[in-house]
């Protein structure tokens, strides 16, 4: 790593760890104090290291300085002293000295507990994703704004409103009890799922950032799987799904950042290791009685790791989509299911069903109709692709449809 990348790198990996430990210590109502302490620590690091050179162990330096700053803060802040410090002293240490535990175990535990605090239905799902990116993943407002295609101020406002809500609701930073954990875990998993999708399907042109979002979602999911209380079949199913999807990450864009459709991908570029990890977690998820939407999607993902177009593959995918739609409808699922219907049963049957969907403001809907009509009626097919083009918003989607249209000329 180049020296000039050190602070951004440490910010990415260490900010979230220290924040979680301090938040856990202070309670969510004092999240801003934790943020100030960690920001000050990084500022001091950049100044000190700039002048005197790097310490032997920069991470240990950050931990030590943030610890000292915290103790200092607790000593000098009267209100805090009266209200919080007494409680902390009573609960944690005998010596009267505040303990700030930055061990790997406490960092992981604190991050996991923070995950449950942030992924709480008192704030909207978008807010949950936003705060997760900031507090659990160490993303700055600018990066988050870039991923959501909005501006920095909007993200600041959103985050500050969300933190206010968590503060007012006095959300505890802890793992829910074993009886409640499955219920709460569903919210956490849904947020991680959306965080991953944001990276995988986002229309942002920043491909490095998008890949980071996917990796972060997987890292947080891994924390869940590595803890005995949250290592549920659903957690494993979601992680498996993410592994299968991301195995195609490098194969699905060309050197110009343009999307390569599944059928056109070079399967030699699929990441075998991730596919194997996905299979491992899929096996781990096959426990208990409940088949969740993550199980169904992960199994569909597994079939897609087999490039070959067999009847068996598409029949299985169709049946999985049939079940998925019965659990939860979404336009994307309906469209994918209709494509599988064409592959498993017949194009004519799929056209009849596709025309009933009437998703007439969705460009993927017309792209699907265009695809289905291709072998039946070129004129109708082309007109559907043209409608799709007029509805598509992102550059990437437009390019993909343009390529489909150009095939009519040759």
């Amino acid at each position, binding site marked *: 790593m180049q020296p000039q990348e050190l602070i951004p790198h440490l910010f990415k990996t260490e900010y979230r760890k220290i924040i979680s430990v301090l938040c856990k210590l202070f309670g969510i109502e004092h999240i801003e104090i934790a943020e100030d302490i960690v920001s000050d620590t990084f500022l001091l690091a950049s100044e000190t290291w700039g002048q005197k050179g790097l310490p032997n162990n920069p991470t240990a330096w950050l931990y030590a300085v943030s610890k000292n700053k915290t103790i200092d803060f607790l000593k000098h802040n009267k209100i805090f002293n009266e209200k919080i410090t007494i409680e902390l002293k009573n609960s944690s240490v005998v010596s009267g000295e505040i303990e700030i535990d930055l061990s790997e175990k406490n960092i992981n535990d604190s991050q996991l507990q923070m995950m449950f605090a942030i992924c709480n239905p008192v704030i909207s799902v978008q807010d949950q994703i936003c705060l997760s990116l900031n507090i659990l993943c160490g993303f700055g407002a600018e990066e988050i704004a870039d991923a959501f295609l909005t501006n920095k101020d909007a993200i600041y406002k959103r985050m500050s409103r969300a933190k206010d809500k968590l503060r007012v609701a006095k959300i505890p930073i802890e793992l829910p009890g074993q009886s409640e954990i499955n219920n709460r875990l569903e919210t956490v998993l849904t947020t991680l799922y959306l965080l991953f999708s944001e990276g995988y399907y986002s229309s942002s042109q920043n491909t490095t950032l998008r890949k980071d979002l996917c990796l972060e979602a997987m890292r947080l999911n891994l924390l869940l799987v590595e803890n005995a209380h949250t290592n549920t079949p659903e957690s494993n199913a979601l992680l498996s799904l993410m592994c299968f999807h991301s195995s195609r990450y490098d194969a699905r864009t060309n050197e110009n950042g343009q999307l390569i459709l599944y059928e056109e991908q070079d399967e030699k570029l699929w990441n075998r290791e991730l596919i194997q990890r996905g299979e491992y977690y899929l096996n781990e998820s096959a426990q208990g009685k409940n088949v969740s939407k993550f199980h169904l999607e992960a199994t569909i993902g597994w079939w897609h790791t087999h490039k070959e177009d067999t009847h068996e593959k598409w029949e299985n995918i169709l049946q999985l989509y049939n079940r998925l739609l019965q659990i939860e409808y979404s336009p994307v*699922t309906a469209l994918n299911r209709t494509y599988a219907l064409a592959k498993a049963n017949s194009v004519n049957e799929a056209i009849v069903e596709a025309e009933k969907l009437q998703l007439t403001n969705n460009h993927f809907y017309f792209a699907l109709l265009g695809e289905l009509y291709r072998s039946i009626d070129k004129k109708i097919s082309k007109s559907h692709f043209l409608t799709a083009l007029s509805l598509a918003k992102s550059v990437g989607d437009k390019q993909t449809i343009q390529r489909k249209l150009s095939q009519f000329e040759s």
Partner: protein
Amino acid sequence: MNEFVMIFRNNSTGNDQPPSPEEMQARMKLWQDWMGNIAAQNKLVSSGNRLASEGRVIKSNNVITNGPYVEMKEAIGGYIMVRANSIDEAAELSKGCPILKMGGNVEIRTVIPMN
């Protein structure tokens, strides 16, 4: 959108030859594909239940008899719930229901909304 119940009646006399495993598999696919068609339009409210042919009928004099109380071939085999703008639209959804291919029928009833 209103909700409707689709009630399936088989036309079985109870003496039919049991279907082969392949036929059963094929029937299962027909049902799943048909329900998938409805769900893809976001019109499936509940995938409902299948009902066993065995039953009891309790009459007002507390006499319990083996049911079903109607002709076997009119027995209710199952139901699902759908949503649609009108009962005609709901009737349209029932086209392609596999029970029709087996000589059975579908009855559609409007669910009376509570509010």
